[in-house]
């Protein structure tokens, strides 16, 4: 079995999209890990009402956990200078105003950039819509981190999503365990591949026909 990128590497690559002065909302799962790799000067926002908070607490640091300092996924963080606390009306004004970059998980992304990430379809009851729909519509840039295929090897980057949608035509960049793909008006552009993977091998596991970037290269973590 060929080696795919692990979660840490995907998180590292996603964090590369951020720069000093950006305000970012990180979703649950791999996006949360991006916090470990962001450059200086990036402010974190969580939809339950905090901006500019500090790093997430690791397991060994639980004794520092405060009941009042959690993110939307229930993870504990530490306060930081310059932090702001506010209510959800303020929070969602931030989220819907195009001021944030959002890094979200994905179950499926379609060729046109539709995102499905709250319900795995079928008989599934309930689901985790959360703030994802608001972030997907409102953010100035939507980055999705995800696995390229299902456990049975079926593509998760598809022509049309079969799972219930989070939002239509919202995704800008997909970072999977095999590739970095940009969603454009002309179609999905394959920009980077995991080490040891060819464009053809990645295409074989992707439903839409990928446009190959002129400077297609192995995933760039520098």
């Amino acid at each position, binding site marked *: 079995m060929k080696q795919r990128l692990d979660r840490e590497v995907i998180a590292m690559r996603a964090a590369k999209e951020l720069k000093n002065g950006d305000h970012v909302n990180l979703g649950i799962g791999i996006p949360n890990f991006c916090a470990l790799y962001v450059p200086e000067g990036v402010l974190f926002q969580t939809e339950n009402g905090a901006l500019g908070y500090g790093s997430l607490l690791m397991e060994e640091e639980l004794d520092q956990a405060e009941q*009042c300092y959690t993110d939307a996924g229930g993870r504990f963080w530490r306060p930081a200078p310059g932090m702001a606390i506010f209510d959800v009306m303020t929070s969602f004004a931030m989220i819907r105003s195009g001021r944030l970059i959002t890094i979200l998980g994905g179950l499926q992304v379609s060729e046109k950039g539709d995102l499905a990430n709250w319900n795995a379809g079928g008989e599934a*009851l309930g689901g985790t819509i959360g703030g994802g729909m608001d972030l997907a519509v409102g953010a100035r840039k939507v980055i999705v981190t995800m696995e390229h295929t299902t456990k049975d090897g079926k593509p998760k980057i598809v022509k049309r999503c079969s799972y219930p949608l989070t939002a239509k035509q919202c995704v800008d960049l997909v970072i999977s365990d095999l590739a970095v793909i940009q969603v454009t008006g002309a179609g999905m552009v394959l920009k980077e591949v995991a080490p040891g993977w060819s464009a053809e091998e990645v295409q074989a596991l992707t439903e839409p026909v990928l446009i190959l970037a002129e400077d297609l290269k192995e995933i760039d973590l520098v």
Partner: protein
Amino acid sequence: MGSKVFAGFDEAVADIQNGASIAVECWGVTAMAQNLVAAVKRKGVKELTIITHNFIPLVFFEEEEVTNLTHLLPQLKKIISPVVGLQRLGAGAFIKEFVDKGLEVEMTSHGTLASRLYAGAADLGGFYNPVGVGTILEEGKEKRVIDGREYIFEKPIKPDYAFIRAHKADKLGNLVYRGVYRADQPIMAMAARTTISEVDEIVEIGEIDPEHVVTPSVFVDRIVKVPEGGLGSVARFREMIGKLAEIELLRKLLFK
């Protein structure tokens, strides 16, 4: 004006009838009005509508340690929430037996819920929402194109009651929160007809700086103090954190 301070939680919820709608925040149960929820469970009123942010079973703790909204399931007619269940815990499978018996679930998004509660608070007829276009949130609702962009018409939510977990109240009913306790509670407190707050501390009038008041007293009807070491108290939280380290599945959910 009579005192807003109630000695106990059962008295504070005494007038809640079958069929009532209650807004309760639940972004992580640590910021939830657990004592008021436990009192409603004891009271046994039925056919309730719960408006919340997260409706997720807490399989790791006993009910006496942490009271959760899911403990009210047999008493519910309807849930309005952006999150029902968690993928890693089998999603919404835990509500299936209740859905089969008639429980209604209305999914929404966090931002949509915040705006619907604000619309309720401000007596608006509704608003046009760009979020949810092309998703299940559209179902059964009016859509409109305004300046070339599609919107869904969302109606206000006006709960009968709001259960608010604040940090400090003065005897007038001004509320101060702590950290992310705040979240959607100020909006819930304004949207509800009757707002009941449980707090760590009740102080004398004048002891809260007006600059720090987040929920002005006019919106708050009843105040009850959380007992030392009681449900949702900081002391109880510290005990839970101690246990959390031992619960493999919970550590996985939070740290992996």
